[in-house]
């Protein structure tokens, strides 16, 4: 069960790196979504994976009778999903606001905070973004 998941994580990371290398910020965000999914799957896989064995202890005994799934990574993943959901919502709104204010989605064209310096004159060149 671990091997297909590991392959899946690899594919997800490859796709997300491809997307994040794009200049378009929306693509970057999609890449980030894939990357955090890959991270969550990694944690999920790093815990034990078992089919049809919930981590429940039978009434009257003190330990589970068979090898069961580890519930802790699943709790971690749940926390991480919630957090990344919040961050992503913020990032989307931020990109939208930046698009409205700066008129572009190209990360390289956003030079308001760091204007390009013209090497000849040493003055910031006023190229319209």
């Amino acid at each position, binding site marked *: 069960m671990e091997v297909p998941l590991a392959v899946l994580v690899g594919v997800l990371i490859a796709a997300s790196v491809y997307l*994040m290398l794009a200049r378009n*910020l929306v693509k*970057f965000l999609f890449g*980030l979504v894939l*990357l*955090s999914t*890959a*991270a*969550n799957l*990694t*944690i999920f*896989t*790093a*815990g034990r994976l078992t089919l049809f064995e919930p981590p429940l202890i039978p009434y009257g005994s003190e330990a589970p009778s068979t090898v069961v799934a580890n519930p*802790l*990574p699943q709790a*971690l993943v749940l*926390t*991480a999903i919630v*957090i*990344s959901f*919040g*961050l992503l919502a*913020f*990032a989307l709104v*931020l*990109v939208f*606001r*930046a698009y409205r*204010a*700066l008129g572009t989605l190209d*990360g390289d064209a*956003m*030079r*308001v*905070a*760091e204007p390009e*310096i013209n090497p000849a004159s040493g003055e910031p060149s006023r190229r319209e973004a």
Partner: protein
Amino acid sequence: MLSWLVALPILVPFATAIIAFFLRGGGRKSAWASLVGCGALLVASIVLLVEVWQRGVVVAQMGGWPAPFGITLAADLLSAVMVLLTAITGLAVAIYALVDVDEAQVRFGFHALFQVLLAGVSGAFLTGDLFNLYVWFEVMLISSFGLLVLGQGKAQLDGGIKYVALNLVSTVVLLTAIGLLYGLTGTLNLADLHLAVMKLDNDGLLTVIAVLFIIAFGIKAAVFPLFFWLPASYHTPPVAVSAVFAGLLTKVGVYALFRMFTLVFTQDVAFTHGLLLAIAMLTMITGVLGAAAQNEFRKILSFHIVSQIGYMVLGLALFTPLALLGAVFYVVHHIIVKANLFLISGLAQRMTGTFELAESGGLYKSQPMLAALFLVPAFSLAGFPPLSGFWAKFLLIKASLDVGAYIAAAVALVVGLLTVFSMTKIWAEVFWKPYPRGDLPAMAIRPGERLALWAPVVLLASLTIVIGLMPEPFIVFAERAANQLVNPDAYVKGVLGGAL
């Protein structure tokens, strides 16, 4: 019984944040609430520090779950002093923000976000659990996002994009690293990880995970070549915000590196700490060269944060008791100096109307007091005796020479020299040369606002002078803190207690 003491530096800012949130519509009420909250945080952190100094590591098991099963809060000397510095910076910025932050930003919840940021920073310093550390990073991050783009200037949105994008990548890398480390060891408690890692025979995989941690915390700490978000964004928000960011945020990354690479990842010091050494030197050099190329007050200071981070990482990379001592001392000195310089840049901007060096000038003549106050942190940053930065650099360079790291020592010295260059550039342009457009505008500062703007600068500058003139107690302190890092047994015993 002491457990609430460790939790207080987290609870106080959270409680203040809630109060400030509900008062945000009431004019200055939320600012005063924020100020009182910072005062309370300062008291709480001093009490915690005294307790840690007298009794050793103070530990609290949240919810009564024994370690390593529950979430542990633990304060050793490093954590305690970092929390104290958080409180000092928080207080200085809260005073400054009384005037600096405008009403619209207060209505949007500046003070609530600011307090949540302080809670997140304190939480990151105090937690003894790796996943909990991740959560505190997120708390810190989301509030810093809010603060950074509050006001929504074009430059702020632009800087915010870069800040948000790179920091989100860092959190995902951190999460992956934590997941893999958990898969390898089956524990998330830092003290328990210290023991679990020793029993492990898969050192290669562990080193891979260690490098993932270096990347994740390296982005937060703004080391070479991962620092580009910092100079892109730190000069855009209101001065109060950049001051608290400059003082605290990158240092959380540095602290996390200290914690992980003294307590957990010590299996392959030659590789991991060798890598950190290379990173440290490159960070120092690129930071200071970047600063030399800038012509804007806050941009110069931003690049200097990067170069100073290099010194701290250098102390960790050398990994001797003296080097760690120097690094701890450096962090203490740096937070105070850096926050102060950003506040001074704000004062200079209020008086000249600009952050651009070329358009600024004349402050030495019109504001000799401010000029003197600038010289204290500026010279301290560059490492002039007898200010705090001199001792910090002296200790680190001596530590490098002791282990024969001559290149590192040379780099540290040259970077110190180049720092003087940048500081004299600011001095010559902003203070020394006459104001380029005739007389300095008389706008400056209304009398009622004077105290709030000057008090934090004077407070931080006097701290710098005190550390500089009386370094002895601070060095003794840093030595004990460094010893706790080198010999983590007390920490481990304190956290795991009966479980050992």
